[in-house]
């Protein structure tokens, strides 16, 4: 194989890898679709009211096995970076809000859990894979979309969060 072929092959594989990592590229760089949802403690929370802070929106579901690993990791991130201006919002897309509430209760999470039982918000965010973690910068623009969760992804989130907090 010639050198040109090798370079082309490498570039193509890098492109494909990039595309796989940044799933849902259509949202990145665009204003985050606004939503207002009821939280577990009864308050209604609106995303646009957190303008000026970095917001991590995590869409999760009881049936998505990876959510069980990801939610405690997000709780740790929230504990560390909450004072630095990070807001973590967990959005449950479970149709059964009662069971989702029980699930979240058992996890003892320190950040607000919201319920999108009609999946309206999930549609706006073009969810392809669960769980999905979206990072919104201080001006309300989607900067990172992370689909799925595997061990070590929380480190990637930390890098992304630190970058946005520094801006």
């Amino acid at each position, binding site marked *: 194989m010639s050198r040109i072929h090798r370079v082309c092959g490498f570039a193509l594989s890098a492109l494909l890898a990039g595309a796989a990592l940044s799933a849902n590229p259509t949202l990145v760089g665009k204003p985050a679709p606004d939503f*207002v*949802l*009821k939280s577990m403690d009864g*308050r*209604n*929370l*609106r995303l646009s*009211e957190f303008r000026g802070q970095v917001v991590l929106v995590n869409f999760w579901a009881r049936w998505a096995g990876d959510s069980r690993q990801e939610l405690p990791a997000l709780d740790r991130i929230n504990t560390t970076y909450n004072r630095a201006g990070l807001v973590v919002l967990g959005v449950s897309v479970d149709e059964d809000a009662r069971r989702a509430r029980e699930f979240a209760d058992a996890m003892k999470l320190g950040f607000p859990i919201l319920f999108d039982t009609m999946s309206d918000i999930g549609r706006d965010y073009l969810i392809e894979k669960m769980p999905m973690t979206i990072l919104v910068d201080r001006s309300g623009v989607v900067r990172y979309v992370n689909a799925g969760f595997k061990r070590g992804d929380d480190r990637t989130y930390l890098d992304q969060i630190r970058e946005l907090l520094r801006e």
Partner: protein
Amino acid sequence: MNSKHRIVSIMLRGGVLAFAWALSAGSPAAAADAAPPPPAAAVAATQLEAAPAAAAPAGDQAPAEFKTLDQEVQGMKKDVIDLNKDLFVLQEELLFPANTQVAVYVSMDVGAFFALDSVTLKIDNKEVKNYLYTAREAEALLKGGVQELYLGNLKVGKHELVAFFTGKGPVERDYKRGATITFDKGVGAKYLELKITDRVTKHQPEFKIKDWE
């Protein structure tokens, strides 16, 4: 002025703005910015010769130029904002023409007996709006704010509007109440106001719908 005239006026103003922008980009100041820098030695020599005579006037001129440029930019910004406002009004007029327009507003007075959580609006038995209030929004209403809850189109004739209010009533109890109004939609726009007030004698909130003629 009708819609066609407005569109033409907006397009003309947009064109004038673009022209002004292009002019300012091509102004001597901008051209000086874009011009390639002269050789350093030549600059130094020119500066040495011209320094005693030209230093004072140049120092005065530069801030004045900046001031004029700044004023121009501010003027353009204002024009853009005006243009944006006109476009918004035009959009509203086109999407919701006055002869079919129905607007519903929400206002709240006192609120000692009711903490608003959500309002569901039904027109002719069809749900048209379901709005959840955050603590900030409820507070804004309590401070005298009026919210445009719904803007839509309706045919001329009789219609029924039902509003359901949910929240916390007296003694922190869950509270849900409804209010209904039947109104005649004429040729002009129709404005309705959902009013939440306190009935002090009964220690209860009161929900009314006012038809603004």
